[in-house]
């Protein structure tokens, strides 16, 4: 090449082309989105994050959680994410406008977390003995037989729980199941959203047979804040085959002062601390869990079709109907 000028021009030009085309133009198109609201100006989605959640996002980034977990739900034509109950609909740009940093993630050594907060048990159900007829997913309703059959990918046996018993997902119900040693014999309680989906009648994504598998007795309800703490402290007490590192440095071991503090982790097996000691989360751990509980994209978006057939009532909407809770007429 002879001329220096064309060389320089070309070098700058080709880069400018990519910079403008792939970052500036998209910024012009989707870089200034507003949250959506309905006609009355209420029901705004998404909402800006609170302080603990923002800090939790930084803890999440700083500890490299996004090197194993993704936070994006693919459309049903691109992947099985929705069938796995990781979301009712695909993620859209508007879902992330208040997040910083946005860690979509590129690897799934652990399941997708975009809606992990949506899978948390509702306050009402975790307290009421019957659990209500809500489609909100709870743990521990699929029988071990169902999980076993799901793992073998065969049709569910007739012993799968009927919808009437399914919502009995409170801690009391969990405790009443035959206690299993840490890690049940047979298929471990893996994070399989679809296991019970296969186990429910007619292999449909039925809300009454929740898609989350059974877990060991004695643990908090699945995907509750307390559960997240136990999972971070000791992943293998929840899922024996898990590869997730344990994050014990986010927790403190301290002496019980008067009574056990409400924060203390409910651990089982070999993880339980010695007599008179308890394990409590640090502030960073609490922020991290707050962040995860806030990860919730289940609110419908006008520009995205909801395809989850058993699309649960979005948490932003009213609480799920409990029997007798509505004026019958």
């Amino acid at each position, binding site marked *: *090449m*002879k001329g220096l000028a064309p060389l320089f021009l*070309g*070098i700058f030009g080709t*880069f400018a*082309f*990519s*910079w403008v085309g*792939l*970052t500036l133009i*998209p*910024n012009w*198109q*989707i*870089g200034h*989105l507003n949250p959506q609201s309905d006609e009355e100006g209420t029901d705004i989605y998404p909402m800006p994050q609170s302080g603990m959640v923002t800090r939790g996002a930084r803890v*999440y980034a*700083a*500890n*490299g959680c*996004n*090197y194993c977990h993704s936070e*994006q739900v*693919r459309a049903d034509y*691109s*992947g*099985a994410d929705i069938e*796995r109950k990781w979301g009712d609909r695909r*993620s859209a*740009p*508007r*879902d992330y*406008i208040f*997040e910083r*940093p946005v*860690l*979509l*993630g*590129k*690897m*799934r*050594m*652990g399941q997708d977390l975009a809606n992990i907060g949506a899978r948390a048990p509702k306050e009402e159900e975790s307290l009421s003995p019957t659990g209500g007829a809500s489609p909100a997913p709870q743990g521990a309703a699929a029988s071990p037989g169902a999980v076993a059959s*799901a*793992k073998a990918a065969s049709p569910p046996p007739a012993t799968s729980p009927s919808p009437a018993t399914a919502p009995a997902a409170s801690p009391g119900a969990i405790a009443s199941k035959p206690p299993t040693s840490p890690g049940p014999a047979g298929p*471990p309680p*893996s*994070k*399989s*959203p*679809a296991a019970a*989906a296969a186990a429910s009648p007619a292999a449909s994504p039925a809300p009454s047979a929740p898609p989350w598998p059974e877990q060991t007795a004695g643990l908090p309800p699945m995907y509750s804040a307390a559960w997240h703490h136990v999972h971070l402290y000791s992943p*293998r007490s929840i899922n024996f*085959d*898990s*590869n997730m*590192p*344990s994050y*014990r*440095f986010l927790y403190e071991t301290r002496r019980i002062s008067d009574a056990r503090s409400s924060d203390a982790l409910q651990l089982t097996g070999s993880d339980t601390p010695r007599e008179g000691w308890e394990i409590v989360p640090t502030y960073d751990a609490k922020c991290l869990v707050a962040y995860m509980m806030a990860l919730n994209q289940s609110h419908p978006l006008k520009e995205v079709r909801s395809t989850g057939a058993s699309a649960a009532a979005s948490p932003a909407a009213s609480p799920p109907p409990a029997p007798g809770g509505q004026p019958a007429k």
Partner: protein
Amino acid sequence: MNATGIPLKEPAGSVAAGDTEQLERALIDASTRVPVLIFYTSAVAWLILGTLLAGFVSFKLHTPDLLSDISFLTWGRVRPVHMNVMVYGWASMAGMGTAIWLMARLCRTVLRYPLLLVAGAGFWNLGVFLGVCGILLGDSTGYQWLEFPSYAAIILFVAYTLVASWAVLMFRFRRGEQIYITQWYLLAAFLWFPWLYAAGQLMLFVVPVQGVLQAAVGWWYANNLLFLWFGAIGLGTAYYMIPKVIGRPVYSYHLATIGFWSYALFSSWTGMQRLVDGPFPAWMVTASIAATILTLIPVATVGLNHHMTMQGYFPLMRYSPTLRFTVFGAMSYTVFSLVGVLISLRSVARYVNFTQASIAYSHLGLYAFFTMVIFGSMYYIVPRLIGREWRYGSLIKLHFWASAYGIGLMTLMLLAGGLTQGASMENPSLAFSESVESVLPYLRGRSLSGILLTVAHFIFAYHFGLMLFGLGRKSTVPTFLNPVEAEGAEVAH
């Protein structure tokens, strides 16, 4: 392990002793000694650290309880440290070292303002060190290859401006009319990197762009770093080393031009290939996939150019370490691009997205292509700086095969593992943990390949250390990989 006993041979096309061009080159080499060796030594040190971290990361993936409860050894922090040490510590510094020597040689002037480079190297090392400490202590930003906290990033940028200003000055004072192919690539790399780095840092951390664009900018940066910084330096180096070692001209100027401009145009658009099916307007992802398809143009062009240049000289790879490493790297570049096209297509991405296949792709580009080409260049350049030859040909051979098998095994393991993982994930009747369990044996295989690579790097570092301490061979005959038998073999190195 004995020095190759080869009778001294006059180089082909020999020039009379005392030829001014030779003296020029000798002076240039001597002037580049200190800065280039500083860069190389730092790079090799970071390589060793990065390799140890890589082993740590790989093993912890399938044995998670290994040293897991210490905050600065948790997998999620060690992994970005490994990546950044390799990218900014090893690859960038070794690449800059080679680029400095190449620039000096091609500009045909002694290295001026070496202090700029020495300061640059010092600040760069400081930046990487601070960045590494920052990440381990919990300041990682979370964006791939931009994890260094801002206090380290700014130092890196300052270091870089020192190096870049040197490059511009050298170019300003170059002699000769022609601007050789390598110089296009190197100049482009030196101009693209600061813009890229600044844009990435500003748009992600200073502005920052809203929402999901952060991910888009992040991956635009990461892919462009791979192509426009490392790829450009790697291709430029190959364009120098191959014709230089075999003594024949590059096949075609036109191919070189087309290859360069199409590379510049298309490879910078491929960033979104890592975010296929993500929450973005469809056109962004489609544009990147189309660009990835179009990068087959420069790949075919450069590949043909190198191949035709080498036509009839492939047997020389038996002897010349530089040629062997460089041609391996150049061929890997083709493989890397083809794999990239495959895994970006939406129908394939459905299965390989979110799996280990993407790691295979990154390592193909950074190791099988870039690192191998740089190894080749170091085997060529270091004797010219030190005035000694590499001591043991067998060690170079061992290094080559360990690296080649290591990266080959790793690529196979991760691609196969990724496909298995993806197929399991796509089957909703299988529990999610099935996909993780199905990839575990492949991850163990990858750890095995990591052992091979560790061996390779330790051998190289030891060998390099020997050279550094003046323990190389004193000889006028270069170190070949195999004894040169035939008289007609025109192996001058």
